[in-house]
């Protein structure tokens, strides 16, 4: 993987169209502290970043490096201890429920564990219907809603007829995660935060999930923030890499630059830890 010869370059619109580079989400000095006093834990420590429209950014780091906490803050699910977040050029304001809802129309997420991401008491249809309603389709005729949902299912190679009236536990992990992507397809947010979407999925489904994320970006021009602990995978899919260690972004830059010319010792160590097929361990 060091050579970067096997990276797909065909589906990266940003490299070809540099004019599109508008910042859609950025943060300065973003910090999250859990606890207080002697039990204080700094999960995310003064992180600066900016995501451009249509970009695919990977945040790479080991477990406990603060990736998921950062995602939760970006989503507005956890409060930010310190620092500012800017969404579409303006300071993020999600103090009321109405504003939060508007914010979530622009930013959505796929979670790590598809098995715990669904309410086990609700049928799958309700999850997808919620998305149609959130996009303002509450008063559409029922057939139109079904058509939109079927289209979304078709996008992720699932048949709506086979899914309707089923409960989440009747699906496989890969199907559940694909359904999550169908949800994103229906919502069409500006930014998608994918928090290790492939780590709980078997290798075959993994490639499918990644392809679908790529397709989302290619077709909808979505900004995708990809959280992973797998540097090889991150290099494979993304334009830009951010390496996180103990709540701090130690290195960031274009994917090729970071991989081919790592500066920080942690990045070098991560690179040497990537298993290679051709070399002995």
């Amino acid at each position, binding site marked *: 993987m060091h050579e970067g010869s096997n990276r797909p370059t065909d589906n990266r619109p940003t490299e070809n169209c540099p004019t599109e580079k508008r910042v859609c989400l950025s943060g300065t000095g973003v910090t999250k502290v859990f606890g207080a006093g002697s039990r204080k834990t700094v999960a995310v420590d003064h992180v600066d970043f900016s995501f451009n429209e249509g970009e695919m950014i990977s945040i790479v780091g080991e477990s406990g490096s603060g990736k998921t906490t950062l995602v*939760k803050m970006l989503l507005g*699910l956890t409060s930010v201890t310190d620092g500012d977040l800017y969404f579409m050029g303006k300071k993020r304001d999600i103090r009321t429920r109405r504003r939060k809802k508007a914010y*979530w129309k622009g930013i959505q*997420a796929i979670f790590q564990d598809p098995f715990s*991401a669904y309410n*086990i*008491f609700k049928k799958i249809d309700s*999850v997808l219907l919620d998305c149609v309603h959130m996009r303002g389709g509450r008063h559409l005729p029922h057939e139109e809603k079904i058509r939109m949902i079927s289209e979304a299912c078709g996008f992720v190679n699932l048949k709506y007829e086979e899914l309707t009236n089923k409960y989440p536990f009747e699906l496989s992990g890969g199907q559940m995660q694909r359904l999550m992507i169908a949800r994103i397809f229906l919502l069409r947010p500006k930014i998608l935060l994918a928090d290790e979407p492939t780590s709980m999925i078997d290798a075959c489904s993994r490639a499918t999930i990644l392809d679908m994320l790529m397709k989302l970006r290619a077709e909808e021009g979505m900004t995708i923030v990809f959280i992973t602990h797998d540097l090889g995978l991150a290099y494979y899919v993304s334009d830009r890499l951010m390496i996180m260690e103990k709540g701090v972004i130690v290195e960031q830059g274009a994917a090729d630059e970071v991989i081919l010319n790592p500066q920080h010792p942690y990045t070098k160590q991560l690179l040497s830890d990537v298993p290679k097929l051709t070399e002995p361990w």
Partner: protein
Amino acid sequence: MKNIFKQAFHSPRFVIGFSIFACILLTMLIYPLLMPGNPLEMIGLGTFFRPGTYVSVYDALDADSRTIKLSDADDNRLAKAMSDADRISMMEWLAVAGVPAEDIDLRDTHGLISLWKKYYDPSVRPEGMTKAKRNYYERLNNRLVAVTRADTITMLSPDAETGEMEERGRVAKTDYVNVSDVTNVRRLPLGTDNFGRDMLKELVSACGTSLFIGLVAGGIATFIGLLLGLLAGYIGGLLDDFIMFFTNIFTVIPSFVILILISFSIDQSQRGALTTAVVIGLTSWVWTTRSVRAQVLSLRNRDHVNLSKLSGHSLSRIVLTDILPYIASYVVMAFILQISSGILAEAQLSLLGLGPKTTTTPTLGLMMNWAMLYSAHINGAWWAYYPVILTIALITFSLNLMNTGLDQVFNPQLRS
């Protein structure tokens, strides 16, 4: 939901608990239909009538009598006339009279009586025997002779006008009537209590009242506990601190003490079954709050809740659809336990005389209280308190059994 019901009925514990509870409930519903009337009607003049069938003596005289000759009829009459102490005294006399000890069998009434007839002589004055003792033997002998005398009893009733006694009939020792021919027969399977009320009727009625108290108390406690637990757990922050502050205070002060104080401060005339139930409910929500809060705390950061938030759902909708179903099984089990502890709390309160007012409705606790106040345990009136204790035990046992059965259904790890 259907599945859970099906699974619950596969659990033997739940099935046993449910059957006991269903039997109690059915008895409560059906018995008043078979035996209508006020359960607190005082039918017996006197305290603590033994359980049994009571036949009207007056009507028995009018019933067709048949002659049945039974060889052991006299022996039975004699046996009833002799107490254990009498038998021992008779043995002492026989021993003095020179009968060898191995010939005397205390249990054998017939043999004892024939020996007695043979050896008893009122003119004999055994050495060292007091006059009082000799008089006692004479009285005993007279009594036994009276029992075996082959007499008929003549019934007389005064003439309404002249006041002269007229013979109405004679009853021979061999006269029998069929119980079903007697017009007035009253079965008192559990006897009567200190006020002369039918214990069984009272018990069935008390069972209903106690269950009602348990249900209301459990409902109130579960509702408050659930509401506070959900709010504290899901909203968190200052509200959580505030709710937990109060919950901790109530946890530290024993709720039974509060219960006694509140009940004491409510006037006796104001204390109905409902008031008592509400008071019990208001003092027993603490543990439900704490455990619901703990469960909600672990649920609120789950991905499905986050997803629901991201889908723009309101707080109430998230709590109702994403949190509540996940803890519903726990709440059901807590509710069942609250019912049983509500029934127990009522029994405890009433035993102390702080239960519902005593004139209109019986409760299980009140029945215990009455039995205690009228010293049923000293009088040997076991029927006044054992059935009540057994009923309380059965209700709480069946509820707890159902609870553990459900526990096994909801937590498959506990299945052995």
